């Protein structure tokens, strides 16, 4: 049974009995289903599934952590696919008590983890080998490009990755986060690697760690008043990143979702960081 209590599932579930009508609860899962060409089977998605844009035309079952039992039932699914963050647990148990299959896809925050996700979803959903292999090959190519880009880094580039900047308090990725995973993929050094999880950062810490480049999610940048406002933030201003204007907004789901786009996004941020070094 899927638990919303911070436990991860290490193993990919068995192939589904009936994968003809799928509800996808997770942005990266939806992305992969489209990438595999299996989107015709989707009957509904959650609110974090915003890519590709046609996914937004599907009925929405709510936020991934606050799913609605009856809402999902009304789409008559045969299979519910999601990751660890599906919830609440009571809804999941109600659904499985009605005999609806639930599959939780394991997530690991590195390139290979994304490939594993693709394999896992392909097997559960029953996608043909050719579609799967085509996608994996594409991903491997991107990972090779990424690896080349990574190797070009000769000295550590100090980077911070921000999830939010609210009332002057930034929330940054520490270790054990998807943000940290992306930075590692990009070969960049996370100045907050000694923190664990997403943490609000005190001004002194930000100034002391002094990142050279800062990445922030597009949504947070918009909420803070645009990228110029972020750069002008008194604490950000005092960092190397702020003073040299090396603060970039990146699509949050693409960056942190650990779907196919995360690889190309990692490549993108790696390139950006190196260019401005």
């Amino acid at each position, binding site marked *: 049974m899927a638990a*919303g*209590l*911070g*436990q991860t599932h290490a193993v990919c579930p068995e192939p589904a009995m009936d994968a003809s009508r799928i509800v996808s609860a997770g942005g990266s899962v939806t992305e992969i289903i489209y990438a595999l060409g299996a989107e015709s089977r989707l009957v*509904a998605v959650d*609110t974090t599934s915003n890519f590709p844009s046609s996914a937004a035309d599907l*009925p*929405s*079952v*709510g*936020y991934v*952590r*606050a799913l*609605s*039992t*009856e*809402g*999902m*039932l*009304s*789409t008559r699914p045969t299979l519910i696919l999601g990751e*660890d*963050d599906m*919830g*609440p*647990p*009571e*809804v999941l*148990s*109600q659904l499985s*008590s*009605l005999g609806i299959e639930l599959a939780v896809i394991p997530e690991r925050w590195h390139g290979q983890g994304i490939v594993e996700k693709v394999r896992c979803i392909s097997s559960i959903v029953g996608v043909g080998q050719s579609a799967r292999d085509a996608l994996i090959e594409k991903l491997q190519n991107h990972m090779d490009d990424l690896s080349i880009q990574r190797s070009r880094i000769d000295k550590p580039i100090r980077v911070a990755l921000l999830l939010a900047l609210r009332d002057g308090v930034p929330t940054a990725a520490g270790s*054990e*986060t*998807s943000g940290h995973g992306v930075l590692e993929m990009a070969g960049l050094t996370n100045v907050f690697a000694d923190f*664990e*999880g*997403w*943490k*609000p950062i005190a001004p002194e810490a930000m100034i002391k760690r002094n990142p050279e480049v800062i990445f922030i999610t597009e949504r947070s940048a918009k909420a803070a008043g645009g990228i110029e406002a972020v750069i002008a933030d008194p604490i950000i201003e005092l960092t190397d990143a702020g003073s040299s204007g090396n603060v970039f907004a990146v699509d949050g789901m693409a960056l942190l979702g650990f779907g196919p786009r995360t690889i190309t996004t990692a490549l993108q941020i790696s390139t950006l960081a190196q260019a401005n070094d």
Partner: protein
Amino acid sequence: MTDGKPVSREALLTTANPKLFNRRFQHISLGWKAYFVLAVFLLCALSAMTLGAFDVGVLSIFFGEASSVQEKVLVNIRLPRVVLAALVGASLALSGAALQGLFRNPLADPGLIGVSSGAALGAIFMIVLGGAVNMPATLAPYSISIAAIFGATAVTGLLFAIAQGGGRLSIVTVLLVGIAINALAGVGIGFFQYISDDSQLRTLTFWMMGSLGRADWTSLVPGTVLMLTGFCLLIQTHRQLDLLQLGEPEAEFMGVDVAYLKKQIVFASALGVGAAVSLAGMIGFIGLVVPHLVRFLFGVTHRALMYGSAVVGASLLMLADTIARIAIPPAEIPVSLITSAIGAPFFLWLIVRDRGLWR
């Protein structure tokens, strides 16, 4: 002065001028009003049962034509949800009515005495640190609810400990302790938010928002027992609450054991509200607004007020949950947003209408 005629019984029992104060419906008999409120309750219950994203086909069930899936959804998912909505709504509204009477303050609310926060803190503890606690496997799905009840009980225990220490539980003391507990709970919740990982943080945020979707029959049983116990204990105090309105010493001179009454009400509220929060998260405004709505219809004596609040609270929450479920299918709106959307403007209207009378 008088014209010398004895006052007739009719004069004593009927209204001369219904417009004289804010009880527009005083001239309508209690019987009719009770029927009206029960009819509203039944209407809300029926619509809650039949409406929803998933068509449970209530009518088809009557004709024996429903699919087994429909029956299962109705009985195992829709019905417990409606029952939970009714119980939680009644619990919160009744506690609100009792606390407004106890504090002799129209703005009193179960959140005020810190019980909701205590329950929330317990639940959040379990959400964040629950992995470290060894729960027997059968209890694991209810771990959050159990922790919430512990939290509510701990707050109540604290209130009593402070009361015993001073000998008397003065209303100002309870209010201050409630404020302190709310503040402490805020610190505790903030702390847990800080140490939680991203996943727990999001779970926590959504749990706090309040939802009736977590109901199933097994988890409902302990909560129901607690809430019903709370009801009985509270409704029993209606006459004493009336007498308390003239003042605490005045009530005591009329034979009310005020110290005991305070404990009874605070304890019974903690039971009811703690159980409600543990099952449904924080749902606001019901305890505050429903008693005022009921006073508008039934007047201020606590017997009608308390029974009325229970029924109207149940109806309101069932209605709010129905709206939450059918407004943006197949997604759901958090029910607390609906109760606030209904409750806040209504409350503002009450304030404006009565502004001459409020202190």
